[in-house]
């Protein structure tokens, strides 16, 4: 292997590995899995570096490879065990109105003080960690990557109506979690 190529590789890892790990952890819960996927991404990127066409930024290209690997992981995981999403849609109709039984929402005064507080973001992160992994991934796809709904449905293999239900359920879980922290 030529030394310039070696230098490229080292730079690639130094410049992008932490960014890729942060990206992976916005969508996954398991840090070891995230590290493995980043390693796989870097290896396949280095193998394919000659085919990189500089039409996009290197980081964007790397992120798209990593994203593909994360999606593959979800698809494989889905065939291995019953996913929280499918088990949710299987549940019987009597539970469909469960959120009506919940006592109201946030209290207005609390919201005003919490909106500006720095610790609110930490609390929100804790609450995101309690979500099923795929739901956390959907939140990241929507709010971090700002993807269109069609793209999210495609990546996660769900229908648009599944997506609205998941977002709705996610928000209810986040509300409950934050309310508990804000008491």
């Amino acid at each position, binding site marked *: 292997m030529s030394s310039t190529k070696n230098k490229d590789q080292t730079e690639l*890892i130094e410049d992008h590995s932490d960014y890729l790990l*942060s990206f992976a952890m916005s969508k996954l819960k398991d840090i070891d899995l995230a590290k493995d996927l980043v390693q796989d991404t870097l290896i396949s990127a280095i193998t394919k570096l000659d085919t990189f066409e500089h039409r996009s930024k290197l980081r964007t290209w790397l992120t798209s490879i990593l994203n593909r690997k994360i999606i593959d992981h979800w698809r494989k995981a889905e065939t291995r065990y019953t996913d929280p999403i499918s088990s949710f849609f299987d549940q019987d109709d009597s539970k469909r109105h469960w959120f009506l039984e919940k006592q109201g929402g946030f209290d207005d005064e609390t919201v005003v003080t919490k909106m500006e507080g720095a610790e609110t973001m930490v609390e929100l992160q804790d609450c995101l960690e309690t979500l099923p992994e795929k739901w956390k991934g959907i939140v990241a796809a929507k709010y971090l990557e700002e993807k269109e709904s069609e793209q999210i449905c495609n990546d996660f293999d769900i229908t648009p109506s599944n997506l*609205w239900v998941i977002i*709705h359920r996610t928000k209810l879980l986040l509300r409950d979690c934050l309310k508990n922290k804000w008491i």
Partner: protein
Amino acid sequence: MRNCEEISNDIERGRYKKLSVKELIAIKMHLLICRPCADYKKDSDLIDLLLQKKYENGAPKYEFSEEEKLNLKNACNKDI
């Protein structure tokens, strides 16, 4: 008449897609008579704001340790 579940889902769909006038009116009417859904709408807006704020500076940071980076470099060298 649409039920609460459908109204809530329409509220979320409305953040991505343009809703029809008929749908918007159905939501407005429902929120007038349904306290849990009115609360949900308000909280959903708030959580939306919080999530946008949370991600405006990118994802929370994670880092590889120096040792892990060295392992990464070795793994990349070995596999090619």
